[in-house]
């Protein structure tokens, strides 16, 4: 809303015809900013939009894809976007620490969505074997998960070489590095298709007791306060879209490919499958998708605090607001 206010004050609204015309009567306009470009990681939202579930909830929703240089928390905090699917619990902590007025109202991926991968024929069989090896990972949270895992195995920084991971997994495929980080739904697919699943060994953070819930649904504190029904309606429609996307994978993939037809269908099918597993894992199995598992959030928080990634404790009840999900009926939550 502030964006439009700004344009209004400049008096330049007429210059920007790309701004959407007014929506149908009785509908509240809202946007959902994704954490990345259209892909089946977000299939449920696209299917819910396609099938008109947001409209049924009184929301005229526009889905805005993300990009490499966008921080969803900023866009939601400033009001440029209404809803956001942001990085994860780690980015919510970081935003709250910077006093950005955002709240997490649901969590999509209940488990750590990334794993660490080595070649099956490499000498690395346990975490201790990471000693002296070269690892690439993302310096956006995954690096701390890795450091935490290796610390449990008795390894310290300096016992191994850790490098920022670029877009491509090719350096790993070509044998230039020993360990690569891969999201289960994206890079892992590339690794599988290029090297074969049987030639890979996987280290799963959750099996070492480190769970990082990611893909967090956020709204601004103002939205949470002033429009609780819209938030609830959004969650209800999203859960419905997601349940149908996971029940009918083809419809889920089709809804995304209608928006982004150049995507590789096989990859997108795999992605939906893997993203679906992450979404119904853990506490979501009993409580429904997007459930906020307070214990998992606290564990992630304490972990990051211990490694001083966040400098001071975050007020968790204020940052993670489960009341909207709790306000939905069991049927709406799909349990």
């Amino acid at each position: 809303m502030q964006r439009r206010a700004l344009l209004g004050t400049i008096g330049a609204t007429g210059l920007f015809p790309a701004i959407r015309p007014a929506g149908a009567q009785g509908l509240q306009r809202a946007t959902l900013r994704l954490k990345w470009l259209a892909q089946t990681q977000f299939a449920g939202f696209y299917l819910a939009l396609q099938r008109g579930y947001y409209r049924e909830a009184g929301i005229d929703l526009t889905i805005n894809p993300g990009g490499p240089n966008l921080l969803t928390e900023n866009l939601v905090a400033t009001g440029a976007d209404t809803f956001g699917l942001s990085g994860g619990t780690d980015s919510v902590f970081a935003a709250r620490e910077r006093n950005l007025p955002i709240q997490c109202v649901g969590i999509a991926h209940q488990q750590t969505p990334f794993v660490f991968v080595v070649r099956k024929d490499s000498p690395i069989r346990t975490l201790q074997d990471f000693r002296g090896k070269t690892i690439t990972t993302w310096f956006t949270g995954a690096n701390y998960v890795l450091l935490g895992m290796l610390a449990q195995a008795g390894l310290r920084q300096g016992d191994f070489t850790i490098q920022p991971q670029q877009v491509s997994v090719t350096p790993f495929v070509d044998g230039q590095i020993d360990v690569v980080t891969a999201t289960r739904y994206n890079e892992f697919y590339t690794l599988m298709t290029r090297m074969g699943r049987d030639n890979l060994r996987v280290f799963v953070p959750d099996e070492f007791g480190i769970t990082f819930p990611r893909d967090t649904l956020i709204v601004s504190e103002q939205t949470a306060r002033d429009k609780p029904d819209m938030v609830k309606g959004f969650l209800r429609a999203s859960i419905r879209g997601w349940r149908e996307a996971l029940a009918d994978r083809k419809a889920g993939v089709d809804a995304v490919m209608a928006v982004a037809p150049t995507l590789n269908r096989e990859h997108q099918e795999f992605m939906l499958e893997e993203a679906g597993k992450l979404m119904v894992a853990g506490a979501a199995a009993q409580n429904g998708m997007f459930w906020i598992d307070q214990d998992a959030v606290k564990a992630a928080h304490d972990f990051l605090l211990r490694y001083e990634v966040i400098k001071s404790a975050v007020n968790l009840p204020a940052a993670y607001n489960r009341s909207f999900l709790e306000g939905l009926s069991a049927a709406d939550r799909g349990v």
Partner: protein
Amino acid sequence: MSMRGPALAMLRLLAGLLIAGAVWEGAVIALGIRPHILPRLGMIWGAVMQAPQAYWDGFLRTLIETLIGFAMGACVGVLNGVVFFRLPTLRDMLLPIFVVSQTIPVIAFGALVVLWFGNTLMAKAIIAFYLTFFPVTVNTLLGLNSVDPRQVALLRSFGANGAQILFRLQLPMALPQTFVALRLAASLSLVGAIVGEWFGDTTGLGVLLLQAMYNENVVALWAAIFCCAILGTGFYALVAWAERRLVFWGAEQ
């Protein structure tokens, strides 16, 4: 010059493209290069043909963003040049700020543009504009400053007023310099539009590039690169053609 000159040049260009294509295909086959390093041209063409509408939509969208950004940049740039030429005080006040604005990496600036304008076509055009107005400003100013004062004095002695001198002497004389910047701006505005699309959008060549890059879909990446190349080369050629038509005396300088 006879009509055979341009036709011959076109034939040579076609032959060059054919040879480049043959070398590409030959190298991939002969050296057994894997598709994720360099795919065959046929595969790239196949990727475009699989979703031609998406590539065409992306092409058009990026073209429109580029053209709007370029047009704004060209107009504002020429206007700035004239204003700064006439009002040196204003030039001393504003030009340093413009210089500073150009040192901000477009990536940093793009995040702000998204906050202000959202995922609109205009947001991309603004980034294209941001990259283009400065070189046009500087070169127009340079061109205006290089006009021979004796020619100005001559026109003035004939009773020409300021506007007449500007439009009949100074701006035309500055055109060769302005066009140097416009040719640069043609490429820069495309870069601006593509980078703009990296800040979240659904349509455009930049979106296709990004999607292909992060999915490690090398064939689609090359398909998007070729589309960008066609758009960039075509637009540059158009500006160069306009330059040859408008600045027909350019070769003399």
